[in-house]
């Protein structure tokens, strides 16, 4: 088997995550989908690092995780305050930018 | 390196503008006096330019040239020929009167001070406009000219949009909205024109490799710089459109009536007597010099447009119910004459056109400023609201009549000379157009006399019965203008002597000579 399949898997997961972001309204689920996408990327990176035989890919994946963590922290905080104000976690309710 | 006179002439009002704007809000009167003094000093400098200028000398004199943007060959090049000198003098002469006439136009409103009217700003803006106009008369670098040609719009925009007649028949709110409409319209029209011109300027650079008017003109004359016919025509159109908007030429004229109607009389004078002249001046200096062939190619169309402007403007002036709009349309008609004279390509036509720019500036100033005094007294711009003013304010009526007679170019007053020159110059080459244009003088008489009759004669309307006659300040504004009108009408030689050589140059640029009269041809 050729490790390229990992890449295909990553692509698939990424797409699924992206679609999820588009079709789900619940902010939390939405974030999970984002996480999914990030993980897919990570998988790709790891695979690349294996292919090129150096660790840079893993480093990047590592950083990605850190960033993801930060993002989740802030994002969830936002969700909480959002829920606090409008008693709903639906992103469609936060559509005040509409003209 | 002698004293940079031209730079000084342009820089002084600019500095004056800054200084005026810096005067604290409490010291309003101080700001006014400062502005007036600066403008007078500028006048003095302009007179020095006039004296230092030698009509029979080289084409461009008092030149200054410094490299500015090396990479694009943009230079800070100044220089004046006879035409520019005449127009600089006109500007410098008019501005003090404009400032004096607008002395109280920007005072804070006593009643219901909804809009704060920054007096300092008003006078600073006027001076800024003067500076930009003067430098665009002086610039012999296309890019430099373009910059100030466009920058002029900004202060004008604020002058139009920010300061209207304090009394308005429709109340302050509508006044504000109409004002902003007029200002935006003015800005958009001129910006569109400027945009096309920018494209043309860039195109010119691509073709010629530099922006220097003199170099390009010489190169073209010597044939070392060849332009494809189509290229030349496109570039010409780009330039001409901008100038035609500014001039304004039919059908690009509709911004002028709004602008002049909504702005105060001095600003209206600033627009039509000073700023618009840059357009016609630029036609003469840039269009003809840079693109002689294209100019000749476009002449028929332009002449027809000018003709339409003349008749159309006059007819619409007859149909107006608003004094300022009437004057605006009259100006459109007059600009038609100017453009016609420029593109008739005869020495009479072009000298006449240049003379016309000067005279029209003075006559419109006289008429419009008096009209402004009239409006400020009654608080309405509608002709129908007046009547019998002559009885209660004879001096005002008299000056108004003289201004009107100048507008209808009565012989003995300055505009007649220029108008007749333009007509003759056109007639010698295009008889039909000349004859049709002559109808303009009848229409001019019509709108001026109708205006005078409706406002000044007849039984005295109760609203005007208590109208005071001209005050000293106002007389100081009007009297010199009238004296100028009469003097230039009787003895225009000083101006023609300055202008003629420049016109001869331009004629040689376009390789045109006056047609020979029939009898001499017969001999």
């Amino acid at each position, binding site marked *: *088997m*050729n*490790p*390229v*399949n*990992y*890449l*295909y*898997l990553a*692509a*698939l*997961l990424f*797409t*699924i*995550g*992206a*679609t*999820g972001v*588009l*079709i*789900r*309204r619940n902010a*939390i*689920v939405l*974030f*999970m*989908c984002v*996480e*999914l996408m990030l*993980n897919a990327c*990570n*998988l790709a990176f*790891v695979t690349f*690092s*294996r*292919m*090129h*035989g*150096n*660790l840079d890919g*893993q*480093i990047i*994946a*590592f*950083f990605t*995780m*850190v*960033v993801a*963590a*930060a*993002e*989740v*922290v*802030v994002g*969830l*905080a936002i969700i*909480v*305050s959002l829920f606090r104000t409008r008693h709903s*976690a639906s992103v*469609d309710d936060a559509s005040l930018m509409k003209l | 390196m002698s004293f940079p006179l031209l730079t000084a002439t342009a820089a002084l009002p600019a500095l004056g503008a800054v200084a005026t704007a810096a005067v604290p809000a409490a010291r309003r009167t101080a700001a006014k006096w400062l502005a007036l003094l600066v403008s007078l000093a500028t006048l003095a400098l302009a007179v020095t330019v006039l004296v230092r200028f030698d009509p029979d000398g080289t084409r461009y004199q008092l030149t200054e040239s410094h490299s500015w943007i090396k990479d694009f060959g943009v230079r800070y090049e100044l220089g004046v020929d006879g035409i520019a000198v005449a127009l600089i003098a006109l500007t410098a002469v008019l501005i003090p009167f404009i400032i004096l006439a607008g002395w109280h136009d920007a005072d804070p409103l006593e009643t219901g001070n909804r809009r704060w009217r920054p007096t300092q700003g008003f006078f600073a803006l006027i001076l800024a406009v003067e500076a930009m106009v003067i430098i665009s008369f002086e610039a012999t670098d296309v890019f430099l000219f373009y910059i100030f040609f466009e920058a002029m719009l900004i202060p004008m925009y604020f002058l139009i949009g920010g300061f209207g007649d304090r009394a308005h028949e429709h109340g302050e709110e509508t006044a504000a909205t109409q004002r902003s409409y007029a200002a935006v319209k003015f800005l958009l029209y001129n910006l569109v024109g400027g945009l096309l011109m920018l494209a043309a300027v860039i195109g010119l650079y691509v073709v010629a490799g530099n922006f220097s008017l003199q170099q390009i003109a010489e190169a073209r004359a010597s044939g070392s710089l060849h332009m494809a016919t189509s290229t030349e025509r496109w570039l010409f159109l780009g330039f001409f459109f901008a100038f035609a908007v500014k001039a304004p030429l039919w059908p690009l004229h509709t911004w002028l009536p709004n602008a002049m109607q909504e702005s105060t009389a001095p600003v209206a004078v600033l627009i039509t007597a000073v700023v618009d002249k840059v357009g016609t001046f630029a036609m003469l200096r840039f269009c003809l010099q840079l693109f002689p062939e294209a100019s000749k190619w476009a002449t028929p169309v332009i002449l027809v447009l000018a003709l339409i402007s003349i008749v159309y403007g006059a007819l619409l002036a007859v149909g107006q119910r608003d004094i300022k709009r009437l004057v605006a349309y009259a100006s459109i008609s007059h600009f038609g004459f100017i453009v016609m004279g420029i593109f008739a390509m005869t020495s009479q036509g072009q000298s006449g056109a240049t003379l016309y720019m000067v005279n029209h500036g003075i006559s419109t100033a006289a008429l419009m400023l008096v009209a402004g005094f009239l409006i400020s007294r009654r608080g309405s711009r509608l002709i129908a609201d007046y009547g019998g003013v002559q009885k209660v304010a004879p001096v005002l009526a008299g000056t108004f009549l003289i201004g009107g007679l100048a507008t209808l170019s009565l012989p003995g007053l300055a505009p007649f000379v220029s108008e007749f020159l333009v007509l003759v110059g056109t007639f010698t080459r295009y008889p039909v157009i000349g004859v049709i244009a002559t109808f303009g003088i009848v229409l001019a008489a019509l709108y001026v006399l109708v205006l005078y009759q409706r406002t000044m004669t007849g039984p005295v309307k109760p609203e005007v019965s208590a109208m005071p006659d001209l005050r000293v300040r106002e007389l100081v504004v009007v009297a010199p203008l009238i004296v100028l009108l009469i003097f230039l009408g009787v003895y225009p030689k000083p101006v023609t002597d300055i202008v003629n050589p420049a016109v001869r140059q331009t004629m040689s640029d376009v390789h045109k000579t006056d047609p020979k009269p029939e009898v001499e041809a017969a001999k």
Partner: protein
Amino acid sequence: MNATHLAAYTTSTGEAFQFWVLGTIAVIGALCTVFMKKAVHSALCLAGTMIVLAIFYLANGAYFLGIVQVVVYTGAIMMLFLFVVMLVGVTAADSLKETIKGQRWLALLCGVGFGVLLFAGIGNASLKEFNGTGQANANGNVEGLASLIFTKYVFAFEITGALLITAAVGAMVLTHRERTERAKTQRELSEQRVREGKHLPPLPAPGVYARHNAVDIAGLLPDGTPSELTVNKTLRERGQIRDVSTEALNDLRALEQRAEERLERTAIQPETFKRPEEASK
């Protein structure tokens, strides 16, 4: 050692098998994450997917990452998610019904298109032969990473550190609510209640005759109907009220019947007690 060896060069049939099995699971997990109605289920599915991914990391020779994936992601981040879900409401299931017109179709279109494109890209890429992380991991994967992080990527590392701090502070700022006014004393609260004229005495306790004392059981009114008031607000909102009134009353009836038999009374026609609404039917 030879494990790394194995993992690095060849892709053994073992790994292939593992890939196909776990890969399927991962995809299913992902799909469930997207399509589960309840956030909790989504979260759990996602966790599953992540663990699978962790295994793949290991398989790809990224031991450190694999562990981190399990510890940090599945251990920390997903827990964070679960916390929030708990805050927002475990069972608050949002309908998958689409409100924005055409959104779903557009989403699917974009998704599919994007996926196809990615696949095409990967297909085009020339990735036939590869060299594993053998010598990269020669003296330990962690050491390798460390040496890179602290030499080549040190600045990035520091910056991510800063980022994390900022994120933590930001989260605090966002979630922390400054109490602007003084807390109301009990007296004020009661006064307020009086003023608003709503339910002055304390709420009735849940449970029936002390035979049920679970908080989610509504107390019964004298006529046997359950009273919503007795149940905690949150439960009420989630609709998690266990209604035991019927059984309770039936028990009562049976009790009375036995009492009758004991006292040899002529049995009254035994009719099973019905709840009022059933009776009305």
